[in-house]
Each structure stands twice: as structure tokens, then as C-alpha cells.
């Protein structure tokens, strides 16, 4: 998209004949002052934004005496791994980690599958009530989940699925957003592709999995990251649909670390650091995909 284009243009712009004159000496004092202010503001902003991240990591390695010292220590003097083992002892962390991984993976794969099929139907198949059906998909985007959480809780408890994996994933196996995003991507494919595939004797099923899906890997990656992050980070639904520590997801486990009798900040921060590993990896390595996903509904 255009963001890629500007990145590519940027080096050329800086290669323009300006650099010589743009030395320190060539600048007016007012210009220099302005730049100093920009750097100062940015420095303050970076410290403010990054400090909680830094402190979570640093605190996770501090001993209890440092964490409760007054005024608080900002740098761990003796690095300890005790908080991590302590967190593992306090809650069934491994089990909750697995729960979160299972739930987020199942939701991601299921949403990819259902969204790919639905988007394909909208783009490549004839449909009488296309506008109306698409309207239904769009309408699902506007309903706040919190407003319909009570009947969903009653439904799934009524089916005996409270405190089960099925209860955790069932409502999230399809998504209007995923369908909308993939439909936008599929429409970019040239129509001749389908004609060519038809002439080669490929039916819809084969065309979908052999041509459409491989050609849309970036959009599918963006959707996967987005769905996985949202599922991994869910809070309200797992809070009410699970009852036992063994069925809770990691996010609920973190809260129980805070609410527990001891509420040791070291254990809490160690738990946070562990819970961040997968999402941090996704944010760092998948940033360009995330941007694409985030702005799919925005104006271009």
C-alpha cells in the first residue's frame, strides 16, 4: 500500500542535493531550538510509554525486599529467578498457558476457515441476496459483545458447556470482521484468474485452496495475528464461563495472582512477563501485518 511506497521514496528524498546545506552550522538558532524541543518531547514520551514495560521486566527479576523497599528500587541489584518459580507454584500457570494457547489457536484456525469460505462465496460465487447477506455480516460487527453476554452465558451453561474448552471457543468460531477483510483482499484478484482456472478444469474448491488462498497470504497472516491477539487477550468471557483454576486462561490467572492473599508484586510481574512472550513476539515480528489488519476498516 501507500505506506510501503513512501518508505521506498524516503531514501531518494534524502539523497536530493540538500544534505550538504543541512549541517548543524547551516541552521538558524530558531531551527535548532525547535529540533531540540522535538527530541526532548520524544524522549519524555518514550520514557513514559516504555517505563511500565521496563518495570514489569525489571521487577520480575527483583527480590521481595527490593520490590517493597521505600522508595522503590528501579534497577534489580541481584537478579533472581525466584518470582518465576513462585508464580508457577501459586497458580497452575503451565496449565493456564496451555489453555490460552489452545483457545487462541482453535479460534484463529476456525475463524480463518469460516471467513475464507464466506469471503469466497461473496466474491466468486453467484448469490441472489448478496447485499442482504453481506449486510448481516456487517451488522454483526456493530453489536457490542458485552451487551449480549448474558444470554450467551445462559445458552452455553444450559448446554452444559460452562467451564469447558467448547464453552470458551464456540461463540468465536466465525467473524464478520474476518470475512469483510478477506473479501476486500479477494476482490483485488484479477477476474481472469477464475476464468483461467475454469478452462484448466479447476472447480471452486480447488481454485480456492490452490490459487486464492496462496495468493492472499499477507491478508491471511494479518487476520491470523489479529485474531490470535484478540483471543489470547480476552478477559470478560473467560472470566464468567470458567469456574476452576484449571480451566481458566492465563489472563484470568494473572488476576488471581493479584487478588491472592500474598499479592506479591514480584510474582505478578513474573506472570505478566511470561504472558507477554507470545504477544510481544507477534507484535515485533508481525507489525507490518498488524497495521494492515488494523486499518482494514478505516478510510484509505
Amino acid at each position, binding site marked *: 500500500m501507500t505506506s510501503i511506497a513512501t518508505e521506498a521514496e524516503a531514501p531518494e528524498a534524502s539523497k536530493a542535493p540538500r544534505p550538504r546545506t543541512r549541517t548543524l552550522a547551516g541552521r538558524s538558532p530558531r531551527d535548532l531550538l525547535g*529540533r531540540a524541543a522535538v527530541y526532548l518531547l*520524544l524522549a519524555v514520551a518514550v520514557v513514559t510509554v516504555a517505563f511500565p514495560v521496563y518495570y514489569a521486566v525489571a521487577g520480575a527479576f527483583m527480590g521481595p525486599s527490593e520490590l517493597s523497599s*521505600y522508595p522503590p528500587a528501579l534497577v534489580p541489584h541481584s537478579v533472581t529467578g525466584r518470582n518465576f518459580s513462585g508464580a508457577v507454584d501459586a497458580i497452575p500457570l503451565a496449565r493456564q498457558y496451555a489453555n490460552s494457547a489452545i483457545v487462541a489457536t482453535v479460534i484463529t484456525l476456525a475463524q480463518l476457515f469460516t471467513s475464507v*469460505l464466506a469471503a469466497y462465496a461473496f466474491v466468486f460465487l453467484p448469490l441472489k441476496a448478496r447485499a442482504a447477506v453481506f449486510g448481516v455480516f456487517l451488522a454483526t460487527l456493530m453489536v457490542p459483545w458485552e451487551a449480549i453476554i448474558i444470554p450467551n452465558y445462559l445458552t452455553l451453561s444450559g448446554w452444559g458447556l460452562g467451564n469447558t474448552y467448547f464453552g470458551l471457543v464456540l461463540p468465536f468460531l466465525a467473524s464478520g470482521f474476518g470475512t469483510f477483510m478477506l473479501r476486500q483482499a479477494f476482490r483485488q484478484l484479477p477476474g481472469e484468474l477464475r476464468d483461467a482456472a475454469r478452462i484448466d478444469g479447476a472447480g471452486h474448491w480447488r481454485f480456492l485452496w490452490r490459487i486464492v488462498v496462496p495468493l492472499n497470504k499477507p491478508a491471511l497472516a494479518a487476520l491470523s495475528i489479529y485474531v490470535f491477539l484478540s483471543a*489470547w487477550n480476552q478477559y470478560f468471557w473467560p472470566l464468567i464461563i470458567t469456574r476452576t483454576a484449571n480451566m481458566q486462561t492465563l489472563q484470568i490467572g494473572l*488476576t488471581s495472582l493479584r487478588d491472592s492473599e500474598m499479592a506479591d508484586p514480584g510474582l505478578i510481574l513474573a506472570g505478566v512477563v511470561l504472558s507477554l512472550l507470545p504477544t510481544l513476539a507477534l*507484535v515485533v515480528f508481525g507489525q507490518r501485518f498488524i497495521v494492515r489488519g488494523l*486499518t482494514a476498516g478505516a478510510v484509505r
Partner: protein
Amino acid sequence: MPTAPHTAPRAGRRNRWGEHGLAWAFLLPSLVVFVLFIGYPLGRTIYLSGHANDLFGAPSRYVGMKHYTDLLTSADFRRTLVTTALFTLFTVVPGVLGALVLVLLLENRIRGVRLLRSAFALPFAFSVASASVVFAVFFNPASGVLNGLLSHVGLGPIGWLTDSRYALVSVAVTTVWMNLGYNVLVLSAGIGSIPGEIVEAARIDGASGLRLARSITVPMLGPNLFFLTVVSTVHALQSFGQIHILTKGGPDGSTRTLVYSVYEKAFAYGSSDFGTASAQAVVLLVVVLACTAVQFGVLERKVHYA
């Protein structure tokens, strides 16, 4: 090609029948999920809001609009609405403006832009729960970093989460931090899509710094800022985790927003007052739908969905 018309239409027609069936088969999995977990619960929420329920939450008798009229006359609920509005204001305005300032500062051809942009995107990796428990550690009145820093400048310990004057602001600060990564990513993408020639032309005309931002960048970001404001508002209205973790609606109900009130009535402390909770859920639904309607109403002229 002249020989084709004889066979093609018939084969085509049969094929098209099959294709219609295939289309519905492809849509079916999604539609089933939507009907069971969005459509039905929507109707059911409205149904429940018109019924009283027994102690176990089962609807017992039809009471019409009683739950709504009760809400309208309840001072507690009015306070909940005010708290919700304040929380939205405290998170959306600083969140959007803060991200705008950061993104504009990053436009100043400075060194290490990529690194900085990644730093600002860091909070995006945090879930509601992880961000909230980290801030809970900060806000701790005795051992928290915030009061520690305050004590250096001689200011007394503040009950960030236990004093009803500060609790809502503290929860809002946590929320602003949590959403900053998302906001920066959205606005960066917006700036990236401003045509380079326009910015170059303005620079050649001598515009830079504040002037460039005021006359070119901010106006060009208009649609993105609007999108971000609406999305942030809807997110703020739906906020739950940070309130549940940090304050549980307290102290003294000072952080009880609409969503939190729904949770309290329906699920907290063994309460199963699904009737009242559903009426509040319907209020939430109407407010969120109104925000979304504004978005679509304004954007309709600018975006082509079909």
C-alpha cells in the same frame, strides 16, 4: 467460439444451480455462529429486559418497561451513566490527542524513527489483564513506584485506586497507556498514506514543523482521526477488564461504568439479576449503535463498501 452457445447455457444453468448451493454452503458455518451467538442473544437480551426473574435468574413474569423506568428514576444509574461518559472522555481525548502529537513529532525527519515507532507500539502487546496488573503494582499506595516518586518531591501518598477522587482517572490513565500503541499504529498508517508530493511541495514552499502539521498533516489525517475517535469511544464504552482488575467498580461506586454495572447485576457476588442487567445491556447496545451509526453516516460519502 461460435459452437459454444449450444451447450454452454444448459451446462451453465446446471452449474449455476450448483454454484448457488455452494455459496450457501460456504456461508452456512458463519451464519450458524452468528444466529446462535449474536442474533438469538440480541433478541433474548431484549426479552429478558422485559421480565422479572427468580433468585436463580430464570425469567418468571413479564413486567413490560418496568426495568427501564426503574433505571430512569434511579440516582445510582444516572451516576453510572455520568461515570461512563467521564471515563470515555478521559480516555478518548488524551488517547487520540497524545497519539497525534507523537505521530507528528515522529514526522520531523529524526534519527531512529523506526526504533521509536516500535517503542510506542509496545503497549499493543499488553492485554487488558497484563496492563492492569502492572499498573496495579504502580498504584500500590505503600510500595508502588508512583507514590515512591511523589515522596521524592515531598508529596504525600495518594490512594490512586482507593480514593474516589482519583480512582476513575487512574483507571483512565491505564487505559490510555494500553491503547496508545494501537492509536499510534493507526495514525502512522494514515500519515503513510498522505501523498508524498503534497508534503514535498509544502516543504519546498518553506513549510516545516508546526506550520506543516497545522496546514497539511492534520487536515489530511482528518478521516483517520475521525475513525480513531469513533473506535476509541466504542472501546471505552465497552471497557471492562481494567475496572474489574483495578477497582471492582469502587471505591464507593466511583468507577462503576455501564458495562461494569451489567457485570455486577448479572454475575458478581452471586447476583443473578438478569432482568435489570439486560435492561442496562440494552442501553449499552443503543449507545454503541448510535456511535457506529454516526461513523457510517459520515463515512458513507467517502468510502465505497460495495
